[in-house]
């Protein structure tokens, strides 16, 4: 499914959070959103998902302009948002339909994928921060959505787990040809995953730069091209003059 944003903006009670955001994502494209804290990344994802319909501008899904919640959208929120009264497994299977045993089988498979097969019976209050985040990831991925909106999905994870899950995400993307918009603060992650990186800046946030990455997948995490792009991004964020930062 394709996505098209035209001049999207959002104002909360007199305060503009983000303005004039336009971009298109083709079916199967992975788009990265980067930007300083509070510049409106989550706001944009919420607008795309339809959870927030009070934005300005237009969003078209598969060419159709709409403000409703889309079928086949998966959303990994910035917080885990688990249901405290459900076990880990029930949280994962929450959005699934079908017979109980089928759901459980699928749920368990995804729990295995995120490395939580031992924790299926736990309640959210018994999880560590990263575990909770992984449950949320499994819950969103298990429905194999055609559009995936990810809001800093891996930020609470250690480097090792993070890489595993990035690859899990790419696997799913390959299988279902999902269109993905991912918000991240990790530039390595962005360069490893995305076809295009959109950098937002300012308050209210607006698009500052768009960087395309044409390197085919699977990408090597240490590749020179990605390193170059990282430098470009860091520069555009004003971050390569390291000395300045050291007081």
């Amino acid at each position, binding site marked *: 499914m394709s996505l098209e944003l035209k001049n999207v903006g959002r104002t909360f009670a007199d305060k503009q959070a983000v303005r004039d955001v336009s971009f298109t994502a083709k079916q199967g494209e992975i788009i990265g959103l980067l930007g300083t804290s509070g510049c409106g990344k989550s706001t944009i994802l919420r607008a795309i998902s339809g959870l927030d319909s009070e934005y300005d501008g237009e969003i078209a899904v598969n060419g159709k302009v709409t403000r409703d919640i889309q079928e086949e959208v998966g959303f990994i929120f910035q917080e885990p948002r688990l249901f405290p009264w459900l076990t880990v497994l029930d949280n994962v299977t929450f*959005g699934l339909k079908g017979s109980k045993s089928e759901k459980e089988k699928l749920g368990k498979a995804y729990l295995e994928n995120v490395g939580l097969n031992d924790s299926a019976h736990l309640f959210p209050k018994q999880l560590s921060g990263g575990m909770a985040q992984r449950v949320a990831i499994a819950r969103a991925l298990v429905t194999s959505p055609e559009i995936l909106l990810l809001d800093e999905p891996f930020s609470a994870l250690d480097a090792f787990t993070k890489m595993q899950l990035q690859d899990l995400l790419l696997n799913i993307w390959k299988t279902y040809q999902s269109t993905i918009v991912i918000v991240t603060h990790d530039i390595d992650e962005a360069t490893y995953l995305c076809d295009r990186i959109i950098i937002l800046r300012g308050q209210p946030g607006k698009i500052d730069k768009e960087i395309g990455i044409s390197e085919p997948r699977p990408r090597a995490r240490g590749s020179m091209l990605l390193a170059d792009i990282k430098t470009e991004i860091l520069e555009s964020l004003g971050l390569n003059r390291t000395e300045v930062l050291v007081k």
Partner: protein
Amino acid sequence: MEKLESEVSSVLTKDYASKRKQQIKRSKNVENIVLGSIISIILLFVWEILSRLEVFPSYMLPAPSVVLGTIIGLGQDGSLWGHIGITTYRVLAGFVLGTAVAVVLGSFVGFYQKAEQLFDPMIQAFRSIPSLAWVPLFILWMGIGEPSKITMIGVGVFFPVYLNMVSGIFGVDRKLIEVGKINKLNSFQLVTRIILPASLPSFLTGLRSGLGLGWMFVVAAELMGASQGLGYLLVLGQNTLSPETILASIILFAVIGKLTDWILKIVEARALHWQDRLVKS
């Protein structure tokens, strides 16, 4: 061989540990009951002593032993079980009725703005009408049979359940509801799968409040031509100026009300085990 032994011993320890856990649990239960009764027992003692010393006149506040005698007397002539049984039945039936209506109406009002604007103001107004005031209206509408009594109790149960339900729904975290919306739940599913469980703590409080009110409304209900029941017993005691009967009915109300509440409390503890509560000091 060594390994085997250690395994056996570990199995034994585990067995022992789980047994000890059970013991601890049981002894904690006993402790709970003992602690919970201390104050009641002290009060009863003081009351008994003051009565014996005739500080309380017996024609107004007979000693607990006398009241107990009355209750035993009722038990012996067999009418006690009739009183308790019929009243408990009425309260439970009314409880089910009132709760059912409150859940349906509460979900609507909690979920749809329009439903709130339409229904809530009137319901809130009815909420402050005393039970006694309903009596003539119920007699008029429904006569004096069981349905009328049960409905009357249902009215009492309805209000706190409704109120807690609605406020519980209002308090549900938007974040969780959004998860449901993203998963394309329809309104009904949103209510049953997210809003109800999330507002469960408040709802259960409403149930307990409602049950209490059910017991209170029994008196008014049993003014409608009942010849059995705890409420009847109370009014009879007042009409025949028999403080033993009044106190006997009060104590029965307290004890049986407490028992039913205790059941709800257990349900509450089970249903809310997922809450991330602080362990109390």
